[in-house]
């Protein structure tokens, strides 16, 4: 009996005899093409200079009695320009900053009970978080149960470790609520993965840590924890030129995540520090023209 020949449907084989580079890109399964150069590192450095991915951010997350509180600013800067791309951790590269965007989504909803924060290369964070969301869903379908926060963060950390040294810039926190309670992990593009209860990532993180650490207590109520997170982001945006825009605060509880607030930091300044009318000692009088 003649077997049906399915080799024509195999996507990895070229359809025509002489496959051009563009055919590979269109028909084959997506993969990362690498440039053929003698000096890969030099090329990547030059490419980064040229494309100037955005940097600068403040993100924070902490675990408390009622789950996880996650907050971030929304400014992205690109070299000297605020663009929509995400921020980087690398404080040393900060030069002149113009805002390229004031409305970047830095808190990514991986699934209804897990959030990821973005710091570093915007494209890197967006792409790998989306990829993580896909892998989490596949896990759910294969295992008939949700993936744990530890498992999700491990998936991401392993992927980033395999691209270690190739110039990816990702500093993210995976926050979620699973069977063992609230979970918070910090994962970065060096391949590091840390479990913890309080993290802040980005160029504004030192300022956010100051406010967060002094006001933190495990027994905070949801409103107080949200106000602490919001205040920490506000202070970071006040002092760090690379952070600004809108401070978003999310809460992850047993029922999943919920966005609690999104406030413009400029308006927050005046609500925290309203302008006092100054007493006038001597008013200037109009001079009469004779």
């Amino acid at each position, binding site marked *: 009996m003649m077997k049906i020949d399915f080799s024509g449907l195999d996507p990895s084989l070229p359809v025509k005899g002489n496959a051009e580079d*563009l055919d590979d*890109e*269109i028909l084959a399964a*997506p*993969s*990362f*093409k*690498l*440039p053929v150069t003698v000096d890969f590192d030099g090329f*990547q450095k*030059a*490419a980064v200079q*040229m*494309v100037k*991915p*955005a940097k600068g951010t403040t993100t924070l997350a902490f675990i408390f009695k009622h789950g996880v509180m996650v907050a971030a600013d*929304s400014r992205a800067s*690109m070299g000297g*320009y605020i*663009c*929509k*791309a*995400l921020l980087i951790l690398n404080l040393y590269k900060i030069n002149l900053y*113009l805002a390229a*965007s*004031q*409305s*970047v*989504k830095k808190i990514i909803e991986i699934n209804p009970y897990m959030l990821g924060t973005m710091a570093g*290369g*915007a*494209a*890197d*964070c*967006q*792409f790998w978080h989306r990829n993580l969301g896909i892998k989490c869903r596949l896990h759910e379908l294969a295992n008939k149960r949700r993936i744990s926060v530890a498992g999700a963060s491990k998936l991401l950390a392993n992927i980033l470790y395999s691209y270690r040294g*190739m*110039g*990816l810039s990702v500093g993210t926190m995976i926050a979620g609520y699973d069977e063992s309670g609230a979970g918070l992990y910090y994962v970065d593009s060096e391949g590091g993965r840390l479990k913890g209860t309080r993290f802040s990532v980005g160029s504004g993180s030192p300022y956010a840590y100051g406010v967060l650490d002094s006001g933190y207590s495990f027994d905070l109520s949801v409103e107080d924890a949200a106000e602490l997170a919001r205040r920490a982001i506000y202070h970071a945006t006040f002092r760090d030129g690379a952070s600004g*825009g*809108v401070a*978003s605060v999310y809460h992850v509880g047993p029922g999943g995540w919920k*966005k*609690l*607030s*999104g*406030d*413009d930091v400029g308006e927050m300044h005046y609500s925290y520090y309203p302008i006092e009318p100054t007493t006038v000692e001597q008013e200037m009088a109009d001079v009469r023209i004779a």
Partner: protein
Amino acid sequence: MPKQQANWSPYDNNGGTCVAIAGADYCVIAADTRMSTGYSILTRDYSKIIQLADKSVMASSGFQADVRALQKVLAARHLLYQHQHNKQMSCPAMAQLLSNTLYFKRFFPYYSFNVLGGLDSEGKGCVFTYDAVGSYERVGYSAQGSGATLITPFLDNQLKSPSPLLLPAKDAVTPLSEIEAIDLVKTCFASATERDIYTGDKVEMLVLNASGIRREFMELRKD
């Protein structure tokens, strides 16, 4: 003789500026038609805009060879999509495709700064703006290219709408009518041409709305 280093780069910058504005039921996408290299003009009549689907139009500035390759890849992928799904790609779907296409060249990027405009499935205007490696965001308006730093502050002043991240959400639709938006785009290019040497010659504008798509040209300074 001093030691000589190899200095061939696979990239070049052909200059140019692209702008897109989204309205309640229309979208304007515009780009100048000058193509340069260094201080020379290669041509005054080069289109940087391509219509990828019936409701998606992309304008790109940067290295036009990479832009052309990217356009070919997207057009081919759209054709495959139409064969497989028997319908056109929506603008948000095309936006995601463009992002992934750019990111899969993360280690050898397309030197292409893109702006994708069109109508979403509700008929509202949408504009997506990208960086060179694929990060993207849906916005109400955007400028990319050599004149972007000149145009964006002006658009912020005229069109700035409340951030979509605010909660409680504030309405962020551009209140301008289609005629006013086209006029605004013409003003942007006229001003950018004055101060940016890589922008000029002509501006090509595509307007998408419920009744279809139309193209307009306006002359700019040629110096």
